[in-house]
């Protein structure tokens, strides 16, 4: 609490003295807005390949499913997580851990499509990812850089789906190491002359195609690209001004840098950022694989949460750590765990979500039918308690961000589709937030 107050006082003081050190692009007023006054942003930490719930958020040590991992206490009294996440254990008072997410998609591509959009993939329609919906629904004309960004993305990058490819995430393959294609390779004067020539050529084309050319949005896209090229807000993608100690705290990995860039982007006002960490498909040596992965993610996510809290940005930023599915309760002969969509975990913090809470619990016994039958959603299986559906989670995130999840959009195939096919869930939100954002 003292931190909050002192920080706000400091900001006010600096603002008054004209010493605002907010990132470029934000007005002093915007930069000083915190908590509820600030439009919400979303940071999705995508654990690519299928993170094991048992080695992270939902350990079952000493049980048939547990494997070698032990659990540790956290800053939240009733919540114990994997020993592989010591730094995150210190931040659990800020988080909700959901151990009862369920899916029927056990294939990477299909699972990712489902968990990123809340809709099971179908061949005839591509759904937008949560970040694309947020960027689409909550535009901000003051932001000169893309509102939807993917950091260190893999092949399956967040997409605009039926909203259109202009809502696809702006991909930054090597976060913190500069952006490609943003600098003209000629001098300013020459670039200005080129653009003058371009307006002559464009004008000729548009002259007799007034409405058709307007609908192409070519000029609009070009103008936005040119604005972005010269925008001070681009500095949010850079890490040169960040202290070495901060960079070290996040970890000098691509994911660590991605989390730090994500924080900087959110500070500028970017609506949705996804940071990808690949390497979770541990069919072989699952335990060792997760030791490697958690060494990367633990410092990065813990520092991100700590910094957002310290900067008073956590109330306006939702941090969601999620994966396309979990991994099997049983360990295969290669020491690996296979795909398991029947239950898996996620961590969510900020934006009015409950703090220091755990939802759902999963069996400690190895289910008898540990086969692909469950992956296809057929056959009977005793599932987790208090299951949370991905669409329900997303409807709640949307409600918290001020997006109407039940809004229907007419899709290119002529079918109106809702942003989320579920109602928001009050039990995921703090009571005062739930009463405000969930309409009965």
């Amino acid at each position, binding site marked *: 609490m003292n931190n909050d107050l002192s920080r706000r006082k400091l900001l006010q003081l600096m603002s008054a003295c004209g010493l605002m050190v907010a990132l470029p692009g934000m007005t002093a007023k915007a930069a000083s807005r915190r908590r509820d006054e600030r439009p919400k942003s979303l940071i999705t930490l995508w654990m690519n390949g299928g993170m094991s719930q048992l080695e992270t958020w939902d350990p079952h040590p000493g049980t048939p499913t547990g494997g070698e991992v032990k659990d540790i206490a956290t800053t939240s009294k009733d919540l114990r997580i994997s020993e592989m996440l010591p730094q995150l254990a210190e931040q659990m008072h800020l988080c909700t851990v959901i151990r009862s997410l369920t899916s029927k998609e056990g294939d990477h591509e299909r699972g990712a499509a489902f968990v990123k959009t809340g809709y099971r993939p179908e061949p005839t329609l591509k759904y937008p990812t949560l970040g694309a919906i947020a960027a689409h629904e909550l535009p901000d004309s003051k932001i000169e850089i893309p509102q939807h960004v993917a950091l260190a993305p893999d092949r399956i990058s967040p997409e605009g789906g039926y909203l259109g490819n202009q809502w696809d995430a702006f991909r930054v393959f090597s976060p913190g190491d500069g952006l490609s294609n943003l600098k003209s*390779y000629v001098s300013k004067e020459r670039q200005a002359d080129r653009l003058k020539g371009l307006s002559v050529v464009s004008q000729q084309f548009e002259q007799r195609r007034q409405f*058709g050319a307007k609908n192409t949005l070519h000029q609009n896209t070009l103008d936005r690209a040119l604005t972005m090229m010269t925008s001070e807000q681009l500095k949010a993608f850079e890490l040169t001004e960040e202290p070495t100690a901060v960079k070290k705290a996040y970890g000098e990995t691509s994911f660590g840098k991605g989390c730090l860039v994500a924080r900087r982007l959110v500070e500028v006002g970017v609506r949705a950022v996804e940071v990808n960490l690949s390497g979770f498909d541990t069919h072989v040596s699952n335990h060792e694989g997760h030791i490697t992965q958690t060494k990367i993610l633990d410092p990065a996510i813990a520092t991100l949460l700590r910094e957002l809290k310290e900067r008073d940005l956590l109330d306006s930023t939702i941090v969601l750590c999620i994966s396309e599915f979990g991994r099997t309760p049983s360990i295969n002969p290669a020491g690996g765990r296979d795909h398991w969509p029947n239950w898996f975990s996620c961590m969510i913090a900020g934006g009015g979500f409950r703090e220091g809470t755990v939802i759902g619990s999963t069996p400690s016994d190895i289910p008898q039918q540990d086969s692909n039958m469950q992956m296809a959603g057929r056959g009977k299986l005793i599932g987790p308690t208090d299951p949370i559906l991905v669409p329900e989670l997303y409807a709640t995130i949307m409600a918290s961000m001020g997006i109407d999840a039940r809004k229907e959009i007419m899709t290119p195939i002529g079918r109106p589709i809702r942003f989320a096919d579920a109602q928001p869930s009050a039990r995921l939100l703090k009571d005062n937030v739930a009463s405000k954002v969930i309409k009965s």
Partner: protein
Amino acid sequence: MRAVVVLFAVSVAFLVLKAVQVAGKVERPSSPPEAIASSEQLDVAVRRLNDQFHKQWKSEGVSVAGPADDLAILRRLSLALFGTVPSLEDIRQFEADTEPNKIDRWVVRMLQDSRFSVYFAERLARSFVGVEEGPFIIYRRDRMTAWLTEQLQRDASWSDMTKELIAAEGLWTDKGATNFITIARTDDETINVNKLAGRTVRTFLGQRIDCAQCHDHPFDEQWKQDDFEGLTAFFCQAAVTLGGVTDKKTGENDEPIVYKVVDPGKEQSEARIVPEAVPFHDDWLPLDGGLRHRLAEWVTHKDNRRFERAISNRIWGFMLGKPLHEPVDDLPHPVDGEVDPLDVLGQEFRSRGDRLSVLIRMIALSDVFRLSSESLAADEATYSAQVQAWSVFPLVRLRPEQVIGSLFQAGHVRTIDQNSNLIARVQKFGNENDFLNEYGDMGDDELLQQVGTIPQALLRMNGRFSAELSKVEMLSAAGQIINFSPDNSAIVENSYLACLGRRPTDQERTYFLDLLDNTYEADSKKREADPSTPESDPKPSRSQADVVQDLFWTLFNSPEFSWNH
């Protein structure tokens, strides 16, 4: 270690060269397109098609755009059939041709060019197998596209190709069509029969019935869940074995393999047996043969209008960038006694051995294809009505590979094809993949109408592709145009032809000539010719090469370059 790296590099280089060589290999067609239908025979068919549109335009009272000029038609054809703008070399030959039936003869010539078969094979493959990676080892997309390339070179019958795709047996490396089946193999080593049934109906019959996998179609009473299950049953015996794709009639214990459906919440033991069944006209279904073979015969049956309408709509989409009905694979049901443009195309196509070449030629010769994209509509609603009625040529964003193909072609004066030198072709191969990775691929939604994105604009403006391809070098288009153009006016004109496939307007010519007349070279030439000429004030700040490079950059970034018009 170093030796291994070198060996690896050599192997990669060899494979790339091999791939390029294979892509450039030309096989003689089984029968040339003009033998399938003469220009005169096609004229009659095209008149039927045109009548359909003219009647509609008249009844709706929409204004009709004027005709596009021949160079605009050549650009459309080249983009549709080769995936690039025409080369300066192509344009010169085209303009020198003054014989009758020029457009049809050029279409026929293009259909026999290997650039067509390679490019069209890739586009067709998207509707068969999409762009997903598919199962490791047993799925070989390259074999599928090689097989398709061969079929297109032979101008094979579409019915035969369809039958092969649905019912082929054999190794995925040997029989390219079998990859239509192998891509549906799941991690648990079964075949995803739902995927195959959905894809078959979408691709070959132009109907989206995938949702009927779980429930009756919500908006279309004609499609029930039973229909989907019955069609799916035709794939239940398909199997991928070490010997390749085959049909297994019996299981391990000699019990017959039948299609079983386990309803949600039920046990495996409660599975229902679903017999194979077609949703309509079971009289078209042969009684004998394997399940897939029987389905293929039913799909391609001569009276199955959906079959010919589906491919007509898709080829229309390939040619104009936008299908007659959207989405491309969700067509209205054919109505008894009614004929629409898809039926006209379909009937003529069927009557000439169902060759894709016939469809392509008919569309290329149609009035719609030859309309200008210019519209004098006074307001947006009038323009929209024109677009709806196809009384103006639609503006459609080029597909990513058309953009890089066009950038690459515009960067060279000579045609880049199987006759180009290997360095240029290898360079194209590498460039294309890098560019597509950055520009983004549209996957199998390739006919979905989309606008451009900011990363695409940034890539065109500042990416290495436009920088390299606009350079003034000995072998680049910009360099050769400077060296071989007699004067500045010719430089501007040739640059326009190479990049946009047209000549500059007077205003454009004046603007760029002014820039070219204010270069170091122009300045010194003036003073060489007349030493008394006073020094220019201000002094020129650019060389001729800079101005031409800037001109290429400008044309690459113009809306006209990235849109089909």
